């Protein structure tokens, strides 16, 4: 939702970043305010996941220029776990499997690290059990999943739901969802989208990264951005996604930049 005079959650200015010395992001600009949902679309390899990793502070990605400001703080000075504790959440395109670590322990530790940051009391295992019940319902996850190792042997859809469960527990200010729709059938897609929509509020904001317009039938974005060769080349509203679907990404290459379609 668009809210007048709302707080800026994320401001990205002229961001450039490289991996193994190869430039991937080439002057990316983006501003996200509280309450807003932004969609970033773009071809495979255009740098969408790279952008999400840079936001989260993945050590393989080196920021070579520009600024990243999150809730008024310089993100570049913060360790990955500090960014997470401060409410920046990344739903991974490929969630990792962690053998030997129970999902329940993992979720509780993650949740308590965020609560500590927020000055809330930590939840002991019993309290956490209660706390998580309601969250499980949001993403329709069977409690039996809590006893298993993190993501180990989960199906693609189960991993994605587990990501949204984590988002529900951590109550982030900024959720970055990288291809949360990939590999999901239509039912799973609905569940995931419902989860995301349930968690949306006027205080927080969401960036959904996707390839397909399909997801945007369920998660309604306020802005749609097209990413091309490591920067945002077009910004528009929901109709841009439809147009992209109709005309393909090739069409955007003809556009003079930066192009605003309002």
């Amino acid at each position: 939702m668009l809210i007048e005079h709302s707080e800026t959650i994320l401001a990205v200015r002229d961001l450039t970043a490289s991996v193994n010395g190869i430039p991937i992001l080439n002057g990316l600009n983006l501003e996200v305010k509280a309450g807003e949902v932004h969609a970033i679309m773009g071809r495979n390899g255009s740098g969408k996941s790279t952008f999400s990793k840079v936001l989260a502070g993945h050590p393989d990605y080196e920021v070579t220029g520009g600024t990243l400001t999150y809730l008024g703080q310089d993100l570049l000075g913060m360790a990955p776990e500090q960014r997470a504790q401060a409410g920046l959440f990344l739903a991974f395109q490929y969630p990792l499997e962690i053998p030997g670590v129970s999902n329940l322990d993992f979720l509780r530790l993650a949740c308590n690290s965020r609560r500590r940051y927020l000055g809330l009391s930590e939840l002991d295992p019993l309290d956490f059990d209660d706390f998580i019940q309601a969250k499980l319902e949001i993403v329709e996850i069977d409690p039996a999943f809590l006893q298993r190792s993190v993501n180990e042997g989960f199906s693609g859809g189960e991993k994605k739901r587990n990501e949204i469960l984590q988002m529900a527990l951590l109550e982030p200010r900024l959720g970055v969802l990288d291809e949360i729709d990939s590999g999901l059938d239509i039912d799973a897609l609905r569940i995931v989208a419902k989860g995301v929509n349930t968690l949306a509020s006027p205080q927080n904001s969401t960036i959904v990264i996707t390839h397909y317009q399909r997801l945007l039938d369920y998660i309604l974005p306020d802005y749609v951005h097209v990413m091309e060769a490591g920067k945002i080349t077009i910004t528009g509203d929901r109709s841009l996604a439809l147009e992209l679907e109709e005309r393909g990404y090739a069409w955007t290459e003809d556009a003079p930049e930066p192009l605003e379609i309002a």
Partner: protein
Amino acid sequence: MSSPVSTLVNQPYKYGFVTDIESDTIPRGLSEDVIRLISAKKQEPEFLLEFRLRAYRQWLQMSPPTWQSVTYPPINYQDIIYYSAPKQVAKKKGLEEVDPELLSTFEKLGIPLSEQKRLANVAVDAIFDSVSVATTFKEKLAEQGVIFCSISEAVREYPDLIKKYLGTVVPSADNYYAALNSAVFTDGSFVYIPRDTVCPMELSTYFRINNGDTGQFERTLIVADCGSQVSYLEGCTAPMYDTNQLHAAVVELVALDHAQIKYSTVQNWYAGDAQGRGGIYNFVTKRGLCQGVNSKISWTQVETGSAITWKYPSCVLVGEGSVGEFYSVALTNHYQQADTGTKMVHVGPNTRSTIVSKGISAGHSRNSYRGLVKMGPKARGARNYSQCDSMLIGHEAQANTFPYIQVQHPQARVEHEASTSKIGEDQLFYFQQRGIPLEEAVSLMISGFCRDVFNQLPMEFAVEADRLLGLKLEGSVG
């Protein structure tokens, strides 16, 4: 670009201090005269001197093993001091007579020996360099007929038991280091649990090498008579010296009919520094004999220290239906080398054994599991299950698995599973992205990896072992 997640600080070895204490030390070197001197200092009976001299003569004929996957320069056995004892200790009646400096050393190590601060329900034998300095709860144990004392004392007080069992499980010529130990061992613990007695508390020996040039050659013997049970734990630390020190121990366990012995080790000898200078050579022979029917011997080890570890706690399963178990976590970091595993020798019918080995290698270390499962010609219906998992941290570490299987009975069954995994940088990033810092992420993954073994440790020690692994790995991820 900086190597990912390589920035953690290394936790210094906190047991590396030296105690300044006056000691009675004999000159360097080894000869029959030195052995006679040790035996005389300990006022030993003739049979033991004979035992030592026989072993020494056998040792002279032997050469060090070379098949293990470790490398080190040849050891000069004439450069080692074979006996060093804190001076006043000659004969102590109670703890009041023990040098307060010694008591405070053990206190610093977290092993309070003084009456007021004793570990609840754990009896401790504390060994400092070559001798036992104190044994707690002796009287209380004696009420049940349990003998727990230093092996020197046992030689004097219970010579018949020593004569009957010493060297029966690990014969003096068993291997090079066992022969050396049999010739020069100075102290260690002795345990005897009488028939049908469940030992009322945990027994524990704590070894401390203090002197820089002393070898430590301790000898432990545990005998569980018919129907008895005991749980025993050993721990060890040493100061940091930049030269290597030799530790060549022998442990023998004997379980008679229906008896059970559970032997746990948390080994934290000084491992050398990050460049591989110094540290203990831990060349140890541990073996248990399940002599009686339905007897059981269970080894649990958490090996984190030493520059080199060479050690195969084994079970010889003679009694019908006897059970051998080996649960091991071996962690190596920096330039440590470990070649460790077990031997399960199934002699009797319907014997069973379980092997669970978890190797963790970080830094430039080398970590090998080596295990033998042997089903003898009479081992009808015998079964073994082995599981060997390795975890690699970083790119320079090595892990190897050498399983040897010999089956001489058609109705014996052997199962072996193995896996190798790696702590991935992306896995760690996943933790961090959920607000969980690196150290915590690593220790969670390691605990998960080791859980099957830690579950076998007595409760207090499981927590300690978990924490210890976490400390050891700090700085190793990347």
